[in-house]
């Protein structure tokens, strides 16, 4: 396998950063494109149900974050942005 494209200082960690940046850019671009869509207040009946509301699980998320911090080396994933349903 050729190393022609690898920069002299680029190790595995250096290669990881652009990959993460690309991931964030792709996701953010998709979200930006989708954000043109709006849902009228009269169409938000389904969105206002508890099972569609991320904030309805905040107590459970706090407990999960607590035990995960004692068993995993990672963090995050419990602060999902709410809203979107316009029902708050």
């Amino acid at each position, binding site marked *: 396998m050729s190393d022609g494209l690898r920069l002299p200082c680029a190790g595995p960690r250096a290669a990881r950063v652009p990959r993460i940046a690309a991931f964030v850019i792709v996701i953010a671009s998709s979200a930006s494109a989708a954000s043109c869509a709006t849902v009228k207040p009269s169409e938000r009946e389904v969105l206002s149900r508890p099972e569609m509301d991320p904030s309805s699980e905040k107590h459970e998320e706090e407990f999960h974050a607590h035990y995960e911090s004692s068993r995993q080396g*990672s963090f995050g994933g419990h602060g999902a942005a709410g809203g979107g349903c316009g029902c708050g």
Partner: protein
Amino acid sequence: MRLRLDLARASWLALAAVGLTLLVLAAILPGRAVRAEDRITLQGNYFREASTRVLAPTIDIEMDLPDERFTLGGSYLLDAVSSASIAAGAAAVTGGDAVFTELRHQAALRVRSKLDGWTFGGFFRYSSESDYISRAFGLNVSRELFEKSGTLSLAYSGSFDRVLVIRPSFRDTVPWISPSDPAIATCEAEDPTTCGNNLLQSHYFNVGYGHALHRTVLAGLNLEVQYIHGPQENPYRRVDGAFFQAHPYTRRRFAPNAFIRWALPRAEFIVFEQRYRLHVDDWGVLSHTTDTRLHFRIAKILRLRLRYSFYTQKGANFWIPMTERPYPADAELMTSDPKLSAFMTHTPGIQLTVELKPLARFRGLRWLDGAWVQATYNHIFPVTDHPLDYYYGNARLGSLAFSVPF
């Protein structure tokens, strides 16, 4: 001072506190139907693994004063942690296999204000146990966009903790000074630990965006960043049976994550939810988490949620598997922390929520209008090629919650 109590006593204390609160609620809540957002939630959490059991009852109250323009909330949590020793794997330090139960108290106060599409919030939280004191505060702001189809949110929180270590021989606590503390290297005092600091700081930032893509689809993205500075080792664990752990003094963590919730067409009583989280940090810990959930509305008042979560993690770059020990004599960083090793977990879970609205038709129970009861169970199955390092076995998480408006 570390309390050495019988777990059963702590359990009965927690149950008595919950029971007393329910009695008070029944007495003070009037016999009328209410629709306000003011709400009280009681939750009993239970966690059990091979060497540790945790009972964590919580109470949370939120009130609009007088409406959503100013909301005040507060919570109290009691953590009753029982383990075979102060730190699993450090029985030698604590003198054998006696069961220790330690209590942690946590209280939090929060405020929120909603004004013309903007929401502002803040909190302060204080937590105390025999060998750890934590003070944290946070600020957040969010803005509704695109005719309330989207919400952009920003949050910051900082915590300032004091890490102590218990000396069983002296029955006291002293500040824990990390072997990695940079002040030690330049210290000229006879006892270099006097130059160190036991303050552990954390600065956390979160930017998120949630959007209703369709009348049945809600999706969101979050980026979480955390900077930690201070002693980050468990003072009670030993490496190769003799040395203190030495973790890097700073840590930078980065966790982008995304979610989608979709009420299935022609079967809108079923909601499909998918979450994904990537985590990387400058300690070399890389992890992926996928979490798939199905929410079923079985009946008008009954909801069922099934869950499966998969987690995989690469070990920290200074972790050496137990089978390849000991650490080199010149190693500056050393760990025996299981959560810094390489492992995977599978977690299935089930949750049942019963809305109590039908009971509110009966005289004397009208205060149950808007109330619900929720039972949750998750079981964690770890998988690892390094069972000597990640020695946590299966774990069970259960919780029972009761929430009522007032």
